[in-house]
């Protein structure tokens, strides 16, 4: 690249970065303003004074019990991640490393089921969970994760296939059971991939909106996403400075998690496209 091209590239990159960062920055900006200042025209760029109290206000709002909703969400997200990691890796191991009749068909089902939209299952699943007495509890939101998530089974299977066959065959010869191979060889070897699965399912559960909206009936069991929507639409409406503060509180854990595991994340997404 010559100088002119490099300058142009930087200019375009700055523009793109500004466009993608602006909404988040404006959210933070608004969350630190007084209500009058938040709606002032022309807009005030730098909040004055900085209203940190907005956050205290949101956290202290009796109708928006942030710590309770955060705990609810954390429980569902953690159990989903645990379930997805355990079950998907077991199934992926079976599909990649054990020879058995029917595994081709099962893999076909794994691929095909990724295309089925959730609304098709929505009504019958609701009925099943209702008959089990699970409506209003968080069970419908994490128990299915223990039965294998197609996308993660697929992802892990591709990883397992890259591990040489000889490794598991040698272990089998030495009298190691499949369970032993999975536990002692495969899980440690595929730790990065497993981490991807854990992270993705955690984030998926954290961000999930339609599921909690359908299955959770009591405010006390709400997740953050549903609670935020209720907070917004409650009678009288919530002013934007408080709404933005609540949004920051919900986004922050996700972004922290991302920065802690940035490499894992990017590698995980990158591999999904390379079938």
């Amino acid at each position, binding site marked *: *690249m010559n100088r002119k091209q490099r300058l142009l*590239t*930087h200019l375009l*990159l700055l523009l*793109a*970065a500004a466009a993608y*960062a602006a909404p*988040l920055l*404006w959210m933070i900006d608004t969350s630190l303003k007084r209500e009058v200042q938040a*709606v002032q*025209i*022309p*807009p005030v760029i730098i909040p004055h004074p900085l209203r940190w109290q907005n956050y205290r206000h949101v956290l202290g709002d009796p109708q928006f019990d942030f710590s309770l909703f955060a705990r609810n969400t954390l429980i569902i997200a953690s159990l989903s991640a645990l379930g997805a990691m355990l*079950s998907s890796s*077991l*199934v992926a191991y*079976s599909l990649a490393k054990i*020879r*058995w*009749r029917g595994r081709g068909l*099962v893999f076909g089902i794994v691929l095909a089921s*990724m*295309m*089925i*939209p*959730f*609304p*098709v*299952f*929505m*009504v*019958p*699943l*609701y*009925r099943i969970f209702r008959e089990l007495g699970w409506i209003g509890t968080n069970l419908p939101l994490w128990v*299915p994760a223990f*039965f294998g998530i197609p996308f993660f*089974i697929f992802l892990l299977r591709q990883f397992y296939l890259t591990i040489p066959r000889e490794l598991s065959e040698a272990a089998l010869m030495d009298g190691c*059971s499949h369970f032993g191979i999975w536990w002692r060889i495969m899980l440690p070897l595929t730790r990065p991939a497993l981490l991807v699965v854990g992270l993705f399912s955690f984030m998926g559960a954290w*961000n999930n*909106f*339609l599921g909690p*909206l*359908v299955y959770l009936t009591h405010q006390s069991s709400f997740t953050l*996403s549903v609670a*935020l*929507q209720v907070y*917004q639409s409650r009678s009288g409406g919530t002013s934007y400075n408080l*709404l*933005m503060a609540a949004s920051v509180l*919900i*986004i922050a854990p*996700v972004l922290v998690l*991302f920065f802690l595991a*940035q490499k894992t994340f*990017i590698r995980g997404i*990158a591999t999904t*496209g*390379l*079938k």
Partner: protein
Amino acid sequence: MRERITRREQLAGMAFAAPYLIGVAAFLVYPLAMSLYYSFCNYSMLQPAIWIGWTNYRHLLTDHAFHTALWNTIIYAAISVPFTLALSLLLALLLNQPVRSAGIYRTIVFMPSLVPLVASALIWQWLFNADKGLINAALRPMLHTLGRRILAPLAGALGAGQATVESLRHITAPVWLGDPHWAMAAIIFISFWGVGQTVVIFLAGLQDVPRELHEAAEMDGAGAIHRFFHITLPMLSPVIFFNLIMGIIGSWQIFDVPYVMTGGGPGRSTLFYSMYIFEAAFNQLRMGPACAMAWIQLLIILFLTALAFASARKWVYYA
């Protein structure tokens, strides 16, 4: 060669796959069959389902709200999918340039795709606010100048009527979520903000394009644009195809953002397919029509995916 499968292997394989086999039965096959059955029933979940044949499907033919939801989703998918694909590819090409602090730029473009959609919807609702939103605050002075200094004089010079010139002088910013057409535009626009994951997949694909190909072509005197269309694009075509399929499946299920941001309004201008299914099922307890619509949605997605696969033979290049 037929592999010999020992009994032990067969049992082990099935045991390891057992969670999924049970899951397929309980959470896939059974619900799928039941929702197909309900789609032919009058069913409110409070009383037993009653078989009514094709009635639910027939009623959909004359259900205006259904037509609107279907049409809105077609428009959304038809615009959002190709544009997000093109935009993500352009962003990936830009972010793939070997410049300093490229990592920071990538992070910034990726971050919005992590934001929970409910929060995205609220942020954009605030940005698109007609009176107090940042977008109109920026647009208003621009449109003011544009109308007064450029459009009105131009129309006057071209001999437009007094009324036209006057209206151009007072061109105003759209009310976005309060206007049926602009509300749809806004929701499509928001889908451009969450392209981070698609961009990362494209970036990974770009890094897999062999350098030697570019170098050889460059030696032969091929320009950057020529190389893009004859090397980068064909090498990237499997990744484009993957993102296209994901885009189709995702766009047909759009729910969170319009549900939170507009609730389907104004009127029904942003009522989307999945929202109408949700409304029919859980607000009106019309499970039969909800299941019928869900099955039509499934068939549409399958049809479009099959179409994409059929076309793939013509343009997807597997090295």
